[in-house]
């Protein structure tokens, strides 16, 4: 492998890399060609889910546990930044870090005892925590002196086009914000996957006792992953509030959102780098399209399809669809002779 690496460095940039760069370029300029705001919103939603699932993946994929209550942290982020904005006029650009920090702290506090639990119990515990937070928020008109309006939620005071207050009239800004956020979390995941932390996490997830026997502090690793994951999830929560202008407990601290994030990541392929993103790209449009075209005419049909897809994937490809997709793609490439038959590591 070492040989291949140094060898690759001296090669010219391969075809694959060109295509990748072009692809990235398209993503970057796409907003200028998309005329329909609904479509742009749609793209933003896909990116947002990709972002959330990638953040989730640090815990749900690499650390090998199944958090089913991650929306809790999106909620913490959204509520914190909004409350600080409404009460102190603090721009959400700063407020969101306060929310993220809080989420990280809460994540570690929750994680410490919860990671000791076995798989199914861990999942149930995360569900319970998510729902508990929702109930608490619904029942309190004020929290620590701040108005949160209980079940009725918070409406963001609109400032029109105010970049300093994280408010834009043009959706394109939101597109780029989430694109950058996605790139960042993706890069972080990439680095962690190739770092000691990443190896420790995977080892700890699969064979905990063996890892510990080797001197790895599995618990600490999991907590670090949790802190990072919840930190970024909270930032995603603030993004959502800035986009939609309205949050209420059941809308953001919801099991629905928590489950969606988990489903998408798992269907895409948890523990892989691209799984969550692929999952988002395929499932979010599927859900939107079925709801758009079927939701209005036959009640519930779009949900039936969603459930059926989930079951089908679990039955046939429980590891997620990234792998079979890649296999298929490589087969297609070979079929159309876009690649030499020999799989040498040319290009980067």
């Amino acid at each position, binding site marked *: 492998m070492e040989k291949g690496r140094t060898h690759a460095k001296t090669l010219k940039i391969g075809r694959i890399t060109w295509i990748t760069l072009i692809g990235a370029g398209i993503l970057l300029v796409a907003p200028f060609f998309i005329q329909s705001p609904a479509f742009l919103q749609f793209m933003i939603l896909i990116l947002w889910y990709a972002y959330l699932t990638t953040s989730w993946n640090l815990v749900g994929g690499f650390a090998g546990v199944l958090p089913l209550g991650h929306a809790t942290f999106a909620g913490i982020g959204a509520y914190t930044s909004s409350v600080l904005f409404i009460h102190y006029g603090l721009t959400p650009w700063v407020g969101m870090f306060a929310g993220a920090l809080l989420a990280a702290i809460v994540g570690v506090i929750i994680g410490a005892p919860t990671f000791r639990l076995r798989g199914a119990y861990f999942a149930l515990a995360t569900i319970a925590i998510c729902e508990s937070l929702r109930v608490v928020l619904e029942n309190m008109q004020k929290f620590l002196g701040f108005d949160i309006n209980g079940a009725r939620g918070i409406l963001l005071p609109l400032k029109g086009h105010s970049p300093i207050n994280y408010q834009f009239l043009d959706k394109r800004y939101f597109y780029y914000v989430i694109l950058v956020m996605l790139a960042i979390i993706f890069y972080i995941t990439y680095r962690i996957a190739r770092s000691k932390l990443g190896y420790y996490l995977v080892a700890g997830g699969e064979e905990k006792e063996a890892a510990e026997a080797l001197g790895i502090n599995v618990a600490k690793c999991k907590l670090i992953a949790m802190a990072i994951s919840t930190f970024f999830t909270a930032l995603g929560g603030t993004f959502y509030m800035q986009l939609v202008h309205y949050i209420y407990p059941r809308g953001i601290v919801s099991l629905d959102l928590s489950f969606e994030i988990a489903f998408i990541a798992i269907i895409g392929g948890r523990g892989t780098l691209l799984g969550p993103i692929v999952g988002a790209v395929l499932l979010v449009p599927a859900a939107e399209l079925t709801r758009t075209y079927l939701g209005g005419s036959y009640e*519930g049909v779009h949900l039936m399809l969603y459930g059926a897809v989930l079951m089908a994937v679990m039955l046939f490809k429980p590891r997620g669809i990234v792998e079979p997709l890649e296999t298929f793609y490589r087969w297609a490439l070979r079929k159309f002779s876009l690649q030499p038959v020999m799989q040498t590591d040319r290009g980067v």
Partner: protein
Amino acid sequence: MDIMATTIINGILMGGVYGLTALGLTLIFGVMKVINFAHGSFLMAAMFVTYYLFQLTGIGPYLGLVITLPLLFAFGYYTQKLLIRPVFKIERDVREPISVLMLTAGLWIFMDAFALALFGAFYKTIKTPYKGAVLHLGDVIISLPRLYAFLTTVILAILFYLFLKKTRLGRAIRATGQDRDAARLMGINIDRIYNVAFGIGIAIVGVAGAVLMPFYYVHPVVGVVFDIRAFIIVVLGGLGSIPGALLGGIIIGVVESLVAQFITATWTEGIIYAIFISVLFLRPEGLFGFKAEW
């Protein structure tokens, strides 16, 4: 004072019904270590079966059990056989099989949506002769349909307990739950046991659905709320423990009743979750369970 007594009694009765739903789940969870997220949907299905049986033939929910029970058993049996087992097999060696969990979640979404498309959105009730009937014990009022439900729960729990302890099939199920590989070595057909256990678990849910209809309503998403309570009770009572499910259910029912009296009903879910979390951390084996190896 009599209101307090009524409150607590109602909590116990309702708790019995919760315990009944948990009974089926504790079997499934305990024996197969499967988190069945679709449990509430099966309850909903059972309630619809009971509803239509009554509307179309006039057969009451309790009498109708002769039809409901086998139907739900078959439903559970084949769900396990055709849907869950294949997924299970792939993950046989994985420590924490989450694919099954996801599968049942997909099943849940599918079933609820299917019910909506098939049965429509309206909330439906049935009108049995004993609907709304009450028993007066002094100033304390006891709802008869709930009392019947509770008695059914107790009887069923006792029968089930005896089944597990005394019959060969029951013992085989318990053995499989304790140590799958040892059981296989003893000649037990694990797959068949799983199918049967799941079927029985769902059949029990069928009973729960039948006893709920006289005083409740049915609707495609009615199962979710009961599902959540069922899981909490299973953990509270101890995995695989029948007295645990029953007692856990009663505790939850009583807590529910009392929370509304002393705070407001909007806090109920929160308090129940808090209890759940405490049990998870302080005594994960529940009231009657034992520290499991899995």
